[in-house]
């Protein structure tokens, strides 16, 4: 990680920055050592460093107001250490996983990887590669969200701040704050003027180790050899296997941006958002019914379940083509397809706790 950063900084002609980026902020409420006098924020335009999307995703309020909602989660900057040099093992060597343990799976060409929740809960960010593409796999335990981002030549770290109980990441080249769910830059104490950009995202599947291994027996798995001395057998927040603690009760650790009682706070929805709007499908009935329809920013969409992985996908369906499921295969206009591969435009979708989704997207369309 450091080598990569230093290479980048050297290439950018900003060697003076290199010594600052590796150290932790000693105080949770303080500012980064790079924030004063380094000129990082003026010197490196965000869009020159981090791959960004063509259009910006919706925000629930002005960016400065979002910043005002940031609270210290307790750990200082990088107090939760990202994994910057991940190693992987074959599925046969993942004996630290139980069949019901959550894993976050991704397929990219020939690359098939699983990131165990029990490891990510201790690190929240893995700076990795999918093939030759540098990516960050990020997980926020308090909102139940796992999201993948392209990261270019920089790496992402954990700022120690939370908005709406959600991880606020920062990129180590420009020190810009990136609230995870929003995937969009906001001003912060380490970079006051990052502009408004949204990250390029890719999807991960929240499923169980048993289901992922059955679907992808050739998968590799993030190893517990992370470079940190952590206890990966103990989740400080509770447990998903079985579900208990924070993940099932109705309390949040910090204040939420909004409250909405249509679902319990921790109820899991499948959320999708595009520049024109947001939509949430209740995950449980989707898995039962196989298909649900709705609208996203005024455009008809269809959500389909993938029962093999206990997940679902959302597709734009502007022409209202008939979609049906037999529980395994999905038919579109009478032709049969894998749920993950319909002949429609797929929208980036991920699991989220209801309070987190509604807090960030209060105008979301909701289907249950």
């Amino acid at each position, binding site marked *: 990680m450091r080598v990569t950063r230093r290479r980048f900084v050297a290439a950018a002609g900003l060697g003076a920055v290199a010594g600052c980026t590796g150290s932790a902020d000693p105080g949770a409420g303080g500012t980064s050592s790079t924030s004063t006098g380094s000129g990082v924020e003026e010197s490196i335009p965000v869009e020159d460093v981090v791959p960004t999307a063509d259009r910006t995703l919706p925000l629930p309020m002005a960016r400065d107001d979002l910043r005002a909602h940031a*609270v210290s989660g307790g750990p200082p900057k990088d107090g939760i*250490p990202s994994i910057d040099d991940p190693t992987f093992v074959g599925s046969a060597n993942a004996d630290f996983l139980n069949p019901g343990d959550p894993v976050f799976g991704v397929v990219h060409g020939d690359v098939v990887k699983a990131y165990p929740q029990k490891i990510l809960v201790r690190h929240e960010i893995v700076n990795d590669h999918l093939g030759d593409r540098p990516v960050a796999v990020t997980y926020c335990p308090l909102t139940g969200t796992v999201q993948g981002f392209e990261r270019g030549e920089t790496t992402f770290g954990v700022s120690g701040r939370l908005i709406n109980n959600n991880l606020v990441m920062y990129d180590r080249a420009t020190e810009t704050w990136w609230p995870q769910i929003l995937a969009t830059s906001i001003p912060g104490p380490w970079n006051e003027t990052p502009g408004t950009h949204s990250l390029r995202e890719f999807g991960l599947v929240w499923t169980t180790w048993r289901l992922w291994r059955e679907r992808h027996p050739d998968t590799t798995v993030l190893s517990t050899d992370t470079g940190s*001395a952590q206890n*990966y057998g103990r989740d*400080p927040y509770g447990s998903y296997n079985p579900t208990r603690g924070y993940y099932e009760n109705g309390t949040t650790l910090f204040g939420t941006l909004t409250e909405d009682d249509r679902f319990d706070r921790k109820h899991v929805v499948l959320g999708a958002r595009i520049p024109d709007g947001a939509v949430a499908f209740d995950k449980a009935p989707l898995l039962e019914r196989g298909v649900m329809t709705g609208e996203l920013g005024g455009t008809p969409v269809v959500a389909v379940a993938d029962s093999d992985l206990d997940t679902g996908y959302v597709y734009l369906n502007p022409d209202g083509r008939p979609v049906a499921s037999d529980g395994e295969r999905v038919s579109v206009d009478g032709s049969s397809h894998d749920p993950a591969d319909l002949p429609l435009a797929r929208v980036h979708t991920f699991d989220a706790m209801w309070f987190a989704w509604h807090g960030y997207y209060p105008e979301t369309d909701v289907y249950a």
Partner: protein
Amino acid sequence: MSTRDGRSRVGAAVSRTLTVTRVVLRRRDASAVAAATGLGYLLVYLYALGHLAPGIGGVDVTVVSDAFATFFRPALGPLSFRPVARVSVGPITYLFSLNTVLGTGVAALVGLNLGTTYLAWRQPSTCGVGTSSSGVLAGIPAVLSGTACCGPVVLFALGVQASGIVVTAFQFLLPAAVVLLVGSLVLVGRRVDPTAI
């Protein structure tokens, strides 16, 4: 005049506490009480931190690279430091960090408090049991100090939502515990007559 008296009284109390401490360490029964409570506290402290807890099993020892630098790096909360070694023995995993050193220091104070309280209890004519239990009471913030390093995670066990004030307050638990433990040690120690033991 009164200031000199005050200093004199404090000096006498500290002197007597040091003497009583030596007695605690010398007497087999008192030192056993001190060692047992100190060790018990350290185990609770490490458990509260999550540094001594059930793990993923197996037998394994892992030491991080750049361990010395990592040893002083902050982790999850105020006065919380990053583990530099992991020892897994069957179902139990132990993480070694600067917090083990800090916890050992606080555990020593807890042990001395209880050892001294034990001596006071053995002198009921000198010091009533009710008063001598102050050493036990001083152990409560000491135990809480262990939770300080968990940051707000402890709050949902209590059903309390964190705020800036609460999070800030966590950083004072460990220093407060040390102050209270030293204070209670002197408080109890000065009431014990070493010659009567």
